[in-house]
């Protein structure tokens, strides 16, 4: 879709919002501030949707595990690489007196022993041994294994579903987006630059901060504006927007004329082996050529392309830029607090020039992220004043509108199948 607007008001010829069949009116702040709405999200969205948890490289060998706290579902999740090679998630809860079993967030173990009374489970969840077992009554060890959580892997991404028998498969849930992104490689997925923060804001306030580029020339005035807007696109309008049911994507604009300023000697030092386009790239170009060459990356083949942000319903962003790929998880911890985790994947540097470039990227990125998330708690407070009950979204903020629309759908639908129109 062309970004040249013929009239001041977007019409059917140039509006992403209209093209995606979405309403254009103001939207209620209830989903951001209402505890009752949050309870519905817990039950009907997070309780029924497939949730992205991590990469298969994080559990490389039999017995490798990660533990993730899922406050929104009152769950502690133990994800384990099986002897068979598959990946299975379990509730990290002992069958005896329900102590949480594993304390560390990652590791490798041949079996899992609860520290309370040393009940021991296999990597497949089976209860292996119970001290002084014969003093229990009518005891059947086979019935006392770890409680499994439905687990599926798509393109190396581990998803779980908290329904005991998921209504829809992961493939059905991801739908046409899953097909569209099949075969996309994820180079450097074994190592990431990883950020985390606990923020006093609804999870969607944080997600929204990364779901549009309208804010770039304003809040990122110094850090991003020069590279991601110019005289032809001063408001950093997105150069594409797509939706596949609840999942959506937009592509952001790059200023092709951008080069580090003459006097930016540190920046020039960092990027002295690179082209000008690599301003926010953490790694050399060779290993990501295959990623960028995939037809689903920059699908319109726009010359002025800098990144694709894919919003995988409900709370996972899978983004691709010149430098490779990066992700955001937005984990609700209450109706007005969120644990945000961002990871920028990159190979460990093989030489110091690459490492220097990664450092520049990491430091500059910290500034950008502070601008993004530093604002979110203020947004939450603003909404909670209830001075105003609606937010306004412009055409470039269409991805936020799509998310809110589908959260509403999932809350109103009697089943995940109905919410997905299956």
């Amino acid at each position, binding site marked *: 879709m062309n970004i040249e607007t013929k009239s001041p008001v977007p019409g059917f010829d140039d509006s992403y919002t209209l093209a995606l069949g979405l309403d254009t009116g103001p939207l209620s702040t209830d989903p951001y501030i209402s505890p009752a709405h949050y309870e519905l999200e817990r039950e009907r969205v997070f309780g029924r949707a497939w949730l992205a948890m991590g990469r298969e490289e994080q559990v490389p060998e039999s017995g490798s595990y990660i533990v993730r706290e899922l406050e929104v579902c009152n769950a502690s999740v133990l994800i384990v690489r099986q002897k068979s090679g598959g990946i299975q998630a379990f509730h990290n809860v002992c069958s005896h007196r329900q102590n949480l079993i594993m304390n560390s967030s990652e590791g490798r173990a041949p079996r899992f022993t609860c520290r309370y009374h040393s009940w021991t489970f296999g990597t497949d969840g089976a209860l292996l041994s119970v001290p002084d077992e014969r003093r229990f009554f009518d005891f059947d060890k086979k019935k006392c294994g770890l409680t499994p959580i439905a687990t599926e892997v798509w393109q190396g991404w581990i998803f779980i579903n908290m329904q005991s028998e998921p209504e829809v498969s992961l493939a059905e849930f991801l739908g046409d987006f899953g097909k569209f992104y099949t075969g996309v490689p994820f180079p450097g997925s074994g190592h990431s*630059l990883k*950020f985390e923060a606990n923020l006093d804001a609804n999870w969607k306030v944080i997600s929204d901060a990364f779901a549009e580029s309208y804010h770039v020339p304003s809040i990122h005035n110094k850090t991003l504006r020069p590279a991601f807007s110019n005289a032809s696109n001063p408001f950093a309008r997105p150069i594409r927007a797509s939706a596949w049911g609840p999942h959506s994507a937009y592509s952001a604009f790059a200023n092709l004329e951008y080069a580090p300023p003459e006097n930016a000697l540190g920046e020039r*030092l960092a990027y002295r082996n690179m082209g000008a386009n690599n301003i926010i790239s953490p790694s050399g170009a060779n290993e990501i050529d295959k990623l960028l060459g995939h037809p689903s990356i920059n699908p319109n083949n726009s010359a002025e392309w800098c990144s694709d942000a894919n919003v995988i319903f409900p709370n996972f962003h899978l983004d691709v830029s010149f430098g490779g790929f990066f992700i955001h998880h937005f984990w609700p911890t209450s109706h007005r607090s969120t644990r945000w985790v961002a990871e920028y994947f990159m190979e*460990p540097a093989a030489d*110091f020039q690459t490492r220097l470039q990664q450092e*520049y990227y990491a430091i500059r990125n*910290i500034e950008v992220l502070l601008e993004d*998330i530093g604002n979110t*708690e203020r947004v939450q407070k603003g909404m909670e004043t209830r001075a105003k009950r609606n937010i306004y979204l412009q055409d470039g903020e269409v991805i936020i509108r799509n998310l809110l629309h589908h959260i509403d759908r999932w809350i109103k639908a009697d089943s995940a199948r109905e919410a997905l129109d299956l």
Partner: protein
Amino acid sequence: MLPPGFETIEKYVGYWDVPTTSERWERRAAASMDEIRAFYDDMLAHADQALDVIALHDINAMPDDVATLARLMLALMSAAVAIEVVGAPRDPYSPYPHSVRVLRGPSPWG
């Protein structure tokens, strides 16, 4: 200690040579603009020479003095963002101290 030839920047080791990306950001955010500028100017004056020395060694097996020099060069990146992009030790509109934890930086010295 730095390798021979870098005596004039030895005085920066105490403050700017810290183990991780996150600490390099913190050191810069807590410094004055004059301190950042002095470090930045001196490091840039020695940058080509430093990168030549560092390039003689495997990134994962550097002698201690070369590794110290390498970490000072990484600290230069943090100083450069303050001088060239933010125009201040830290963005006055971003929260400070902030709640973002760098759980893992680039490897090594992340």
